[in-house]
């Protein structure tokens, strides 16, 4: 019993035989051992599992691995440069103290990068609305909002 799933993760081909019911997040965490993508709930509310699939931020807990067949996935491990330099959005989170325990952070960053592509200079309200699907219990969102505003500008400036 099982199904072969082949996709691209952080630029590298990945292929494995998994149970049909395997969620994409389980495939990423357990099969590929990329544990930066987190699971914070079971109702697709918290966003800790957010990854980029074919350029769009998605919640990897809410699709099956086999639905990602052939997809191009980027996880938090694939965001920084190869030499370890942080992506501008990651750097903005660090500079503005946009993280505390770090558990929601990968999902926040993945969502923020996608958001910033279409919002190079977002307002506070736009950012707060864009975070509807990402829960944080530590920061009160205050510094996440600041981080995303700064990260979006840095991304736009770096283009």
């Amino acid at each position, binding site marked *: 019993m099982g199904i072969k799933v082949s996709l691209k993760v952080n630029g590298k081909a990945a292929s494995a035989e998994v149970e049909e019911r395997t969620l994409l997040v389980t495939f990423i965490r357990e099969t590929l051992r990329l*544990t930066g993508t987190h699971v*914070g709930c*079971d109702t697709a509310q918290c966003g800790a599992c957010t990854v980029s699939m074919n350029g769009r931020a998605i919640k990897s807990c809410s699709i099956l691995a086999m639905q990602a067949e052939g997809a191009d996935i980027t996880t938090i491990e694939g965001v920084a440069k190869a030499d370890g330099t942080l992506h501008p959005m990651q750097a903005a989170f660090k500079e503005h103290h946009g993280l*505390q*325990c770090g558990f929601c952070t*990968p999902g926040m960053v993945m969502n923020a990068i996608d958001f910033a592509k279409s919002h190079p200079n977002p307002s506070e309200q736009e950012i707060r609305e864009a975070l509807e699907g990402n*829960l944080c219990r*530590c920061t*009160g*969102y205050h510094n996440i909002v600041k981080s995303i505003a700064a990260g979006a500008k840095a991304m736009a400036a770096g283009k």
Partner: protein
Amino acid sequence: MNAPLIGARIARKEDYRFLTGAGQYTDDVTLPNQAYAAFVRSPHAHANIKSASVEKAKKAPGVLGVFTGADVAAAKLGGLPCGWLITDVNGQPMKEPPYPVLAQGKVRFVGERVAVVVAETLAQARDAAEMVDVKYDELPAVVDGRKAIAKGAPQIHEAAPNNTCYVWALGDKAAVDAAFAKAAHVTKLEFVNNRLVPNAMEPRAANGYYSRAEDSYTLYVANQNPHVERLLMTAFVMGLPEHKVRVVAPDVGGGFGSKIYLYAEDVVVTWASKQLNRPVKWTADRSEAYLSDAHGRDHATVAELAMDKDGKFLAMRVSTVANVGAYLSTFASCVPTILYATLLAGQYTTPIIYCQVTAAFSNTSPVDAYRGAGRPEATYVVERLVETAAREMKIDPAEIRRKNFIRQFPYQTPVALLYDTGNYDATLDAAMKMADVSGFSSRKKSSEAKGKLRGLGYACYIEACGIAPSAVAGSLGARAGLFEAGEIRVHPTGSVTVFTGSHSHGQGHETSFAQVVADRLGIPIENVDIVHGDTSKILFGMGTYGSRSIAVGGTAIMKALDKIIAKGKKIAAHLMEAAEGDVEYNKGVYQVKGTDKKKMFGEVAFAAYVPHNYPHEKLEPGLNENAFYDPSNFTFPAGSYVCEVEVDPETGKVRIDRWTAVDDFGKIINPMIVEGQVHGGLAQGIGQALTENCVYDASGQLTTGSFMDYSIPRADDVPNFQVDTRETPCTHNPLGVKGCGEAGAIGAPAALMNAITDALGVKDMPMPASPQNVWNALKNRKAA
């Protein structure tokens, strides 16, 4: 390098790993031959177990073992202990019914652990858990603390008649009653401090591993105090020697109190790992977290404040029923007593206070400390009473506070605490200015012109942090002292590893503690690393809760640093052929007073480890020191919050328009981190008052068991915060620090409810101020 590090906004050392997905949380730890556990949980709030058939589950694919209450009883695993003994009004000990790790013949809340299935994969374990066939005889349940202690309520434990754990009191009732009889005015409120679910973003997890080769256990666990976890598990539950058990709390994704406790799952996976000779991992899904994490708050209170004709406080009288849930969790008993009633003086000179607390068992998940732990409940009592009293007596709410502020320190309160220092005018004045309170009336008119209601509310909170002076804690019932340990290991070339018994699960200790050490030693912060969370590396520790890390753990580190510097002076004196008393240490340099003879810190460290020229007859080589610190008093952070809301009367929706927080945390190590702690605390306090509510139906089913039913604040529920600090250093620790982790959660609910009741023109309304509750309050006001 010589710029002061204390007080500097230094970006966090730990952030890189969290930002790149390299954090290692418990569920990220997968061991060779890893097996997975799934728990079978009670679907009933109260029932006798008739039978539990596991045969089908045992035969399911991939299953390695299935264990029930009978198995853990046969193995003589003890129940989960409670760490704090409360003595009741009659001098009798509290009732401590057993809290088995797997149910013994009876279940007492939905989600209680009945059996565990361990399998090769998590999916197989969960599939097989569905096959465990448990037959129950349902019993009537009771979920409300007040109903639980009423006549005729279902009896939950044989050992606790009337479901009463204890009736406890503090203060002189007769004197308080007499003061009330003479008062010019009495303000009275009756309210519920709503039950909350902590909801750290990382669900609880535990991965137990037994090594036959070493005859020892390792437990990876999402926990705030690994040494306490180990002590409770080994000495009180499993009967193991501590040197055979290593507990690692690696990166932990938030705690807020919920990961202080020893939970049944931690014990069961550790025990099962030996039975099966496999590492056994369990990770809660969010639904399990809602059912089985210790909840917070859940007080039903009647509170009264007596005043003279000018609004001077004469006495306070408080009666609370605290729902402790089905069993006593690790610190459940001290939260509604020692951490609650002792804070009822607040920032005021109220001369006499009487508080009585009845702790009630109910068919709900155990209740224990949640961010603030007793102090938010106390602040809610005090600050809702004070604001209401001001309105009733037509005194400005800031003015009535100023009329009653404590201004002489040290100040002995009537509820056992001795405040060492404070300046409550400073924080209130600053907060009012920042909040532009003087412009409120014109903003209110603008809101009215739009058909909206605007209100303003204050909260001036105090908290006792840095638990605890061990002797005081012991006299109040703590079954362990609450000191902290720290160790400084200087390496041969002068870099430093610090081992702390405090634990960081978001607080940023790896940075702020490194700032303290680098500042004291005068070495670059890059040369200092902090190690925490592993009983095999750290001598001992009581962990992180109650905003104690910097005040207690930081002071232990300071004491160890003093020893390092003192020993370094001896070595430097020898190297420079000077008298030890003539050597001074300053910013990384040992210098003979009045000369240019000097040795760098690194040179002395090198000499300590590679001692060719060393006073062996007088001094051991090496530069490694540890220290234990037991504080002489609590610390007393305090502050003033001003909240302004706009309410839409058509929908009942509350919008927080502005939030100002001015806190006095004493000396601040890293303002960036402190502000982050305040923001997060405020959001949790706002959550309690605006969006969060844990609800069991009458049969004991949890009806708010997911993020879709229980609403923790989202980004658009909270405002942009204006925060600032004032600095009155703590008088009894060398850093002058007080602690900042819980302030926001303590002060925010009262400030917000004061603002909302002001906007609505009602005396009181229940938390949370959901649109429905607000709309009902407005409807009732119109009807009245």
